[in-house]
């Protein structure tokens, strides 16, 4: 297809290198883990991802050298499935959108790999962890580079499997394995949605290749039933993966995984795949505005819902998890309002500040001896952990979208586009602003509760130079860990005392501060230029809010963020009793929010228990009938009848009858044979 050019390899070659490097890392670490001394597995894993990032940059540079209309390159290795009208290649699509995702994924992944070298340094599953983590990066890259729907589904399922493996990484904990199976099954529901969507796409558009399908969909009238159905099914996949209502329940539980996993998979990269999916399939969604509206509404509901839960939750990692759900709601709202570059922009800045928040949370949890994640047990860590404090506050500020930090520009761009769509979207925009206020409040609730106030004993101990250590326990159940197998590691690490952790957090803190400058209304349009011409065919590319509207939006967003932070300051630092009395007065509302709107309990009643009951019914009742009563035992059991028959044949008159019967059958057969002859 491509003659090898003389000097620089073409972008697709770099893209294949991007994809294969983490796979090589996975395989090498998995096969040679016994031969890798010390922390070599971690260095190896980090190296492959780092090289993958570099290859991604070369792919980007190569793409930039091409004229804009030539920046969609497909490279195919071989036929994967070819039968009848179905023809699927093992092919990758290299275009600005996929390269954008590649850079975000590999960049953040590299930093989190480095962080993990220290954070999991003493874990007995160290090599296994890096093998899984590299496998995750490979899967995520397969997802974003896939050139057709089937390969997308493969990557989609692989990230789900990697997520499962890493959630139940500390598998001696029952809580971890339960969370793992929940995450896996909900993700499979999403996979099924994608498979059915793939069928509808093939049926209506004749191909599963992205470019072919996007070309064909131009001929389809707007609101075509099959395409709307396909888009809705794509949304099922997106919601399952991205923790959106009603398929979000696995994501808070996924915090059972080691904290770097929460940072990488359940915050920065995998869970944003749903946003990428919608952006990737934007030609279909633009033909199905009804489906896009459904996506926008559910995104908005989710961002409100998750913000209310984050407001009252007391588990530090779960607060951040709910804030992830909420922030992805913003991104989904963005891409469903056809504000693609705004959605992708927020995806990028969110990856920076959310990974940073989790890394800080990991450091704090380590300082507590890995025994507890509740913010009720935290406080006053400011002095003992200055680096963690500073970086965590930056992350919280960006999450709260304080003026001039990265989240400020990206989130408010989404809201500005939403208002610009008008009609229904105006309501959604107002909801988004309400949630923005809540976000600022709960972001700084974390900061004030963890780092300010009375220092807890562990904080004082740490300020005195000693890291608390009481032997690992499961933070959820208090159960003592099985130290014989060393999960999690016997030691724990805080950023203040570990260079790799600092080295990973500092660049992210910097990016969380300045990451927004690439797209400031009226000044820069970095993301949009970068993504050209992926969205060139979009009807909504020119239909954008004027600069004035965008700047007004920024001002409103900034004011709301400041009000939220001020309110949190007032409630948690100036009037410490206020939160408690409010909680008592609004006990019902608090319980409703605290239990995450009782959705877990609802699903348990609706799905889990009935299927268990069906299993019991099948095992005890249906099987008894088929296997035991009717067949084996009971007065009319087949086996009993058979054995009785056999006994009768041996002992009595029945033998003669049986012989007669057999002869009769033979005679009948003979008759047919002769008659035919």
């Amino acid at each position, binding site marked *: 297809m491509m003659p090898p050019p003389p000097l620089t390899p073409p972008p697709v070659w770099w893209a294949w290198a991007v994809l294969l490097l983490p796979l090589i890392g996975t395989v090498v670490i998995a096969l040679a883990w016994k031969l890798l001394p010390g922390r070599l597995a971690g260095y190896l894993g980090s190296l492959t991802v780092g090289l993958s990032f570099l290859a991604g940059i070369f792919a980007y540079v190569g793409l930039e050298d091409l004229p804009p209309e030539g920046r969609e390159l497909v490279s195919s290795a071989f036929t994967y499935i070819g*039968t009848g009208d179905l023809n699927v290649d093992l092919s990758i699509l290299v275009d600005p959108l996929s390269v954008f995702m590649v850079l975000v994924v590999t960049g953040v992944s590299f930093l989190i790999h480095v962080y993990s070298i220290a954070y999991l340094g003493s874990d007995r599953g160290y090599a*296994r962890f890096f093998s899984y983590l590299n496998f995750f990066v490979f899967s995520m890259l397969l997802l974003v580079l896939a050139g057709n729907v089937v390969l997308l589904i493969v990557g989609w399922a692989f990230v789900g499997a990697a997520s499962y493996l890493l959630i139940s990484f500390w598998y001696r904990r029952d809580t971890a394995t339960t969370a793992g199976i929940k995450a896996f099954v909900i993700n499979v*529901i999403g996979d099924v949605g994608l498979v059915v969507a793939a069928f509808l796409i093939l049926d209506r558009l004749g191909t599963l290749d992205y470019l072919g399908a996007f070309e064909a969909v131009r001929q389809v009238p707007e609101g075509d039933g099959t395409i709307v159905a396909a888009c809705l099914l794509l949304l099922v996949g997106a919601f399952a993966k991205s923790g959106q209502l009603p398929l979000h329940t696995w994501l808070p539980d996924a915090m059972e995984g080691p904290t770097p996993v929460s940072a990488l998979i359940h915050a920065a990269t995998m869970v944003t795949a749903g946003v990428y999916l919608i952006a990737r399939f934007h030609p279909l969604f633009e033909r199905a505005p009804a489906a896009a509206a459904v996506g926008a509404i559910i995104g908005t509901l989710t961002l409100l819902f998750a913000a209310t839960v984050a407001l009252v939750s007391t588990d530090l990692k779960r607060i951040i998890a709910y804030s992830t759900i909420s922030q992805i709601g913003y991104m989904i709202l963005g891409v469903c309002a056809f504000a693609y570059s705004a959605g992708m922009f927020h995806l990028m800045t969110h990856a920076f500040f959310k990974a940073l928040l989790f890394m800080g949370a990991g450091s704090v949890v380590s300082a507590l001896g890995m025994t507890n994640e509740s913010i009720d047990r935290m406080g006053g860590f400011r002095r003992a952990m200055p680096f963690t404090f500073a970086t965590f506050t930056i992350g919280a500020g960006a999450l709260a979208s304080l003026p001039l930090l990265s989240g400020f520009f990206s989130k408010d761009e989404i809201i500005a586009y939403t208002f610009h769509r008008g009609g229904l979207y105006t309501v959604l925009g107002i909801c988004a602003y309400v949630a923005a206020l809540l976000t600022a409040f709960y972001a700084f609730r974390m900061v004030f509760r963890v780092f300010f106030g009375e220092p807890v004993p562990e904080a004082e101990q740490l300020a005195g130079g000693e890291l608390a250590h009481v032997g690992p326990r499961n933070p959820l159940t208090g159960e003592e860990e099985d130290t014989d197998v060393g999960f999690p590691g016997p030691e724990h690490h805080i950023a203040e005392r570990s260079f790799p952790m600092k080295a990973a957090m500092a660049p992210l803190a910097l990016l969380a501060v300045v990451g927004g400058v690439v797209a400031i209304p009226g000044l820069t349009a970095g993301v949009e230029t970068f993504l050209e011409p992926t969205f060139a065919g979009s009807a909504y590319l020119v239909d954008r809010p004027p600069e004035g509207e965008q700047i007004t939006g920024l001002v409103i967003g900034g004011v709301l963020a400041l009000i939220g932070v001020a309110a949190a300051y007032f409630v948690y630092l100036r009037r410490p009793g206020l939160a408690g009395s409010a909680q008592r007065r609004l006990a019902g509302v608090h319980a409703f929010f605290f239990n995450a709107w009782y959705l877990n309990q609802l699903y348990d009643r609706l799905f889990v228990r009935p299927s*268990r009951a069906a299993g019991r019914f099948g095992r005890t009742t249906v099987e008894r009938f088929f296997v035991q009563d009717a067949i084996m035992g009971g007065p009319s059991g087949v086996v009993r009848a058979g054995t009785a028959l056999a006994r009768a044949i041996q002992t009595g008159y029945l033998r003669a009858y049986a012989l007669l019967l057999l002869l009769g059958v033979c005679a009948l057969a003979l008759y*047919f044979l002769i008659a035919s002859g």
Partner: protein
Amino acid sequence: MPVLDIPLSIFIVIPFAVGLVGLLLPAKAARWLALVAAAATFAYVIFMIADFAPGGSGLRYVTDEPWIPALGIRFSLGVDGLSLFLVALTALLWLAATVVAALRPADRAFERPRLFFLHLGLAETAVLGAFVAQDLALFVVFFDLMLIPFYFLIGQWGTRERVAATTTFVIYTLVGSLLMLAAAVALGVLSTPEGGRISFALPELAQRTLSEGAQIPIFLAFAAAFLVKAPLFPFHGWLPAAYRAAPLPVLVLLSAVLSKVGVYGFLRVVLPILPDAAVALQELMLVIAVFSILYGSILAFSQDDARLVVGYSSIAQLGFIVLGIFALDDKGAQGAVFQMVTHGLVAAALFLIIGALAGRAGGSESLARMGGIAMRAPVLAAVFLIVSLATLAMPGSPNFVGELLILFGAFEDKIVYGLVASVAVGLAAVYMIRFFQQAMHHRAGPEVASREIGRVDLAGIVPLVVVILGLGVYPQLVLARTDRDTTARIGEARELAGGTSDAQASPPGGVTPGGATVPGEPPVRSPSRPGGEQLP
């Protein structure tokens, strides 16, 4: 030209012949001979695959001699794209089972090993014969021959309640076999045209016509035999007892290979010869398939016996295969054949793994007594993980390719069945991950001894895992070779179904919509088919 051209009649008899020779040798030599024979058989199959060009079709290695001329029965063998990979699967899994049975340490070896390997060889001959038979009578003979060695293998070398298990197994299978025998005779006789000679040759039978009224009872009799063999719900009554009792190497073959002979029969015998009945009873078969999928999946996640988890999951997987076949769609049939191969691979690997797990849980196969060994047995954990993910048809595994094609085939015309079956994909995730976790994760129980998998088990399992991974990356290896011969088998039934149910979407040339239902007229068939007088 093939590098080696061994006639199929010799090729399929080798395992049995070697078993007979083994009777005369010392026990140890007999074990090694069985192993060498299984390895050689598999090696020859690799030649056969290499020799089969992608996109090719038609019978190879044909043997076609008169056998019982008075009854029109011929000794007719041949391999085509449809059977090629089932023959390969048989040879591979027989090798794996023989490795595990033959190489186990002397203190844990079977009693009477020579007899054991004789039966194993006879069983392989019968299964290979059933896959390559091109004459219906010969197919029936091989199909029934399979019962004899398995009767002894379970009844003599089995565990627990083996007598009751064997009795149930034999009664079920015999009833099915007798029905099939009767149906085969009736088919041969009824389809013989006026003045023509009786024939049981499958291609000849496919050419002859039979009224729909005559086809339906014959179809039902064949279906009963095949569904019992598979088994599908509600014909699975023999499964729990037989699965619990069978020795593991035998169970590998019972679950992974024998079940495929049944569903293979639908494609080889039923659909080409009885297309009108297949169309008329399509809904019935689809209901059975979908019911099996759901029922098997739900029961699989409520079992505590590891063997039964896999056993019930097999019912679900075979339901998928039947769904693909009776979707009467090219993609569905292709997916069904592919799924036969991949399900055989994962089921075999899972049973071998259960053997390893039980060895680490004090001999118990109860999930409640397993657990907590992943840390000290990472290789076992890794292969188990790969096989588990393949079993639940995770995208990227070969099983996903089969399931995708089956679902696409079902969606084409029978979208409701397809959607209901899709639900089971989620259930599969539940029962496989549950199985994996209970066996590998959590805390170790009191009787659990965490140690790495042994070399013998590894030698049996690793080749299967390699094939699973290889087919996951390059499924086209199989698909390109099965494509034409598989779709040819269902072609007629598909056109009949398409002509009546979806005429405007795909107007097949030469078929009158609804033509087959006009009373008094012979069924309308594809133009190539010579019309014949119908028998009353």
